[in-house]
C-alpha cells in the first residue's frame, strides 16, 4: 500500500470529534473518492493524510514511512517530495506568475534542481497553459487558476496527490474538464489520487469511494 491510515482520530477542544477512528488504504495508482456532507471530516482527513495536520490518535503510513511518528521538523520535506495538494480555490500566490507558482515547490527543494524552470514549463504545458506562463493569478480565469494549481501539485512528481473539492468553485462544464485532466495526469504518472468531492459523477469515475458521516467511514 502506498497510503495506509489506521484508527485515525482527531479531537478538538469542546468535545468536537472531527475524525473518529478512520481506516483507509490506497494502492499505488489508485483513485479514491471521499464523499460526505459538509462537516463530516473530509478536509480534516485529507490534511492528516498529507502530513499537514497530526491526528490525536491513530497512525498513517506514506510510502512505507510512518509519518505520524515522524518529527514535526521533517514533515515539510515529506510534503515537498511525496505529496501534492490542490485546494478548492485561492491556491496561488497572487504576486507570482503562473510559471513562478508552478516552480514554487522546486524553490524549496535542497539542493535546488538546475532545470527547475524547464520542469515548471513542462508541467504548465501538460495542463495546456503554456501561453499563460507570465500571467499573474488575477489575469487568469478560475478554471485556469486550478489548472496552474494542478501543474504545481504534479511538478515534483509526488507519489500522492490530494485534492479537496478542486472543482467546487467552477461551473459544471469546466469542472468536468478539470477532473478529466487530473485523472489523466495522475494515471499517466501512476500516482495515487485521493479526491474529496460532492459530485456523484466524479465518484463514479473513481476506483473506490468512501463516504464519511460524522467523522467515521460509512460502510
Amino acid at each position: 500500500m502506498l497510503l495506509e491510515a489506521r484508527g485515525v482520530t482527531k479531537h478538538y477542544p469542546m468535545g468536537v470529534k472531527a475524525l473518529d477512528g478512520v481506516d483507509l488504504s490506497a494502492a499505488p495508482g489508485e483513485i479514491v473518492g471521499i464523499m460526505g456532507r459538509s462537516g463530516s471530516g473530509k478536509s480534516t482527513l485529507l490534511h492528516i493524510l498529507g502530513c499537514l495536520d497530526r491526528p490525536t490518535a491513530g497512525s498513517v503510513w506514506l510510502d512505507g514511512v510512518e509519518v505520524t511518528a515522524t518529527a514535526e521538523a521533517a514533515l515539510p520535506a515529506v510534503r515537498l517530495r511525496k505529496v501534492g495538494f490542490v485546494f478548492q480555490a485561492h491556491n496561488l500566490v497572487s504576486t507570482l506568475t503562473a510559471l513562478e507558482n508552478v516552480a514554487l515547490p522546486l524553490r524549496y527543494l535542497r539542493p535546488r534542481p538546475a532545470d527547475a524552470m524547464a520542469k515548471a514549463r513542462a508541467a504548465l504545458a501538460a495542463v495546456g497553459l503554456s501561453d499563460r506562463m507570465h500571467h499573474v493569478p488575477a489575469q487568469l480565469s478560475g478554471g485556469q487558476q486550478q489548472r496552474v494549481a494542478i501543474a504545481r501539485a504534479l511538478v515534483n512528481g509526488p507519489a500522492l496527490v490530494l485534492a479537496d473539492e478542486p472543482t467546487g468553485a467552477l461551473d459544471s462544464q469546466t469542472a468536468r474538464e478539470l477532473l478529466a485532466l487530473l485523472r489523466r495526469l495522475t494515471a499517466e504518472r501512476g500516482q495515487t489520487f485521493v479526491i474529496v468531492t460532492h459530485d456523484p459523477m466524479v465518484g463514479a469515475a473513481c476506483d473506490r469511494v468512501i463516504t464519511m458521516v460524522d467523522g467515521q467511514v460509512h460502510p
Partner: protein
Amino acid sequence: MEALRNLRRRSVRTSLTVLGIAVGILAFTVMGGMAEKINMIIRGSEAYFAHRIAVRSAGGSVRLNFLQSDDIATVRQVSGVQAVETHIMLPMDETAGFELAPRSLVGIDLENFQRAQALAGQEAQLRLWQGNWWRPGDREVAVLGSAVARRMKLKVGDPLLARGARFRVVGIIEETLSLPDGWAFIPQEDARALVLEVSSTVPGSDVPAFATNAYALVNPNEGDAVTDEIATRLRRGFLLYSPQQLSKAAAQASTLLNTAILGSGAIAVIVGALSIINTMFIAVAERTREIGIKKAIGASRWDVTREFLFESTLMAIAGGLVGVGLGTGVIYAINWYTRDQGTPVFIMTPRLAIGGVLFAGVLGALAGVLPAMRAAALDPVEALRER
C-alpha cells in the same frame, strides 16, 4: 523577484517605512559626519604629538611662566630627547579661540622647526600646498594653515593682518583637517615682539629667548620614561604631556564622543526600525493564506522566516541607501554654506557611508525577526482557512 514585488504591491506603506529608516539614517550620517570630523582632529593631534613631549606653562593669573632658554637647555640635556622644538603661540585675535579651527599665530625658528619635522613621524609632517617657507632671517612673513587662508581669503603674496601687525603670506600648508589648519606660522622674533608689546610684566630677565610651548622630540615608545625624567629636572610651573598620556586621553575622548554622537543617531534609526516591525506584522497578517499555501507545498519554517527577513532587510537597506544619500547631500550643503569657516564642519567618509547602510540592514533584519517568526509559526491548516 518576489520580495520586490511584495514591497511594490503595498507601495505607499513601503515608501513610508523606507522613508522612516531614511530619516533615521540621515540623522545618523550627519551626526556621524560630525564625529568623523572630531575623530580627524583627535587623530591629527595624536599623530602630531606621537613623537613629542609637550611642555607648557602651568599658567596662573599673576605670573605667566614662560619657558626660558635655560629651561630649554635642561630639557635638551635629558637623555632620550633628540631635539626641542619651541613655539611662541598667541591667538590671532580676541575671538579666534572660539572658532572651529582656532586661529593662532605660531612663532617658530625655521631651522629648529624643520629639524623637528624631520624627526617627527610621516603622519605629523606639514607639507606646503602653495608657495615656500621664508628664508632664514626674513621678518614679517607668514606661512598659513589651510583654514586660516580660506577663512581670511588669503593667497600667497597677500598681506596677513593680525594683532596690529602685517605679515606677507609666502606659503600655504596642505589641509590636515586638524589643528595646524588654524595656525599661521611667523618668524619667532616677530611673535616675541608681539608678546612683549602686550605684556605689562616682562617675564624674567631672559627677554630675547622665551617660548610659550616646547616639544621634546623622542621615540614614541620612550615617551613616559623621558617625561618623568624631564619632570624631575625642570623647575616647577610647567605641565608635561607624554605621547602615551595624550593618546590615552585622546582615545578616551574619542570613544566618549563617538558613543554620544553615534548613539543619538542610532536612536533615530531604531525608531525607524520600529516602523519596519509594524509594517512586517501587517504583511504577515495580510498574507496568511499565502503562508498556508507555501507550507502545504513543503516550505519549512526557515524557508518562510527567510522570505520575510529578506523583505524587511531589503526595505531597511533601501532606507539606508536613501538616508546615506540624503546625509551626504546635507553634509556637503552645510560645508558649502560654512566654507568661510575655513574648515569643514562635517566629514563624509567611506566607512560612515558603508556603516550607515550596514547598520540599517542589520536593524532591518532584526526588525524582521518577530514578524517572520510569527509567519513561520502559523499552523498551515488554520492559515489555509483564511479567505
